[in-house]
C-alpha cells in the first residue's frame, strides 16, 4: 500500500459516501411513494444531472474497489509486483465497463 493508493481509496470513499446516501434515500423515498421502478427510470433517463451522479459513482467505485480488492488479494494470496498491479487494473477496468454500461442504460436512453 503506498500513499497514492491509500489517498485514492479514501478520497473515492469520501466521494461515494454522499452519493450512496443519496442513492439509497431516493430509493426509499421513491418506493415509499408507491412509484414503480419504471417511473424512476423515467425520471433519470435523459438527465445530465443523474448521468453525472451515477457516472461519478461508477468511476469512484471502480477505483475504490480495485484498490480494495488489490489489498485483499495481496494479503490473502501474496500476489506481488506486476501480477498484483495487473489484477487491480483488470478489476478497475471491468468495473468501469460494467458500471459505465449500466449508467448509460439508466440515464441516456
Amino acid at each position, binding site marked *: *500500500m503506498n500513499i497514492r493508493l*491509500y489517498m485514492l481509496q479514501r478520497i473515492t470513499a469520501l466521494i461515494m459516501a454522499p452519493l450512496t446516501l443519496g442513492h439509497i434515500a431516493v430509493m426509499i423515498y421513491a418506493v415509499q411513494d408507491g412509484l414503480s421502478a419504471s417511473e424512476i427510470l423515467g425520471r433519470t433517463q435523459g438527465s445530465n444531472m443523474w448521468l453525472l451522479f451515477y457516472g461519478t459513482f461508477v468511476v469512484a467505485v471502480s477505483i475504490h474497489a480495485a484498490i480494495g480488492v488489490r489489498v485483499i488479494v495481496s494479503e490473502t494470496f501474496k500476489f506481488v509486483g506486476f501480477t498484483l498491479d495487473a489484477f487491480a487494473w483488470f478489476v478497475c477496468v471491468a468495473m468501469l465497463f460494467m458500471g459505465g454500461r449500466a449508467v448509460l442504460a439508466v440515464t441516456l436512453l
Partner: protein
Amino acid sequence: MSTKQENIDVSVWRGDPHSGNYENFKVPAHESQTILDVVSWIQQNQDATLSYRYACRVGMCGSCAMMVNGIPRWTCRTHVKKVLKGKKLEVAPLRNLPVIKDLVTDMDTFFDKWISAEGLHHPSKTRLDPIEEIEPKSLGRVEINAGIECINCSICYAACDTVTNNSDYLGPAALQRAWTVYNDVKDADKQTVLNAVSGDGGCLNCHSQGSCSVHCPNDLNPMNAIAGLKRATATSFFNRKG
C-alpha cells in the same frame, strides 16, 4: 493446606523451526501462580529440555510473551486463574515470529522493523547542552506519553493479522514508537521518520484491526498512534502536492 492437590492440564507446544506438536503435562495448581510459573515448573520438574524465555518476571522486559489459550500474553504477569478454561491451559510460542525452539521465538525481525521504522532518536543536541525545557502538558508530549511505556514484548505484533498477511508490514509496536519519535520536539529528523513509515510496509497497511490495542498488556493504544501517522502522512502528501 490439607486439601488434596489439584492439577492443571497443560498442553505445551514443543518443536523446532521445522516441526512440532503439543505435549501434555499435569501441573500442580497453586493459589498464586502465573503462566510462567507453570511453564518453568514443567522444565524444572517434568521435562528438563523444555525451552522458554524470560528475564525480569515483573512485566518490564517483554521477554516472556507466549500464546496462552490462543491469546498473546505476558506470561510472567498472567495469573493462571485469569485464563484457565476448565482446568486446561494451552501454551504456544508467540505468533508471527519464527520459532527457535519450543516456546522461544526469534525476535530479530520485530526489532529490525523497529529500526526500519526509524524508531530511534535523531539527536538535535549534544551532552554539552543543557536539558531542554519541555512542558509535560505540551501537545507532542501528551501523544508521546500515551505510547512511550512500550516494553517491546511483541504481543501486539503477534496479535495483528496484517503482520501475518503482509511480511513487510512494520507492525504496531514499531509504528507506535515512530509516532512518539515524530512527536518529539527534541528530534532532528522527523521527515526521515515519516518517510520510513509511509512507504510500502508502513502505517498505511494497518486496517485498524485493533487487536494490538486490545491485547497490549500495558494498555497502550498502537492503533491510535498509527492513525496519527496516517494523518501525518496524508497531510504531508497534500502539502507536497500543493
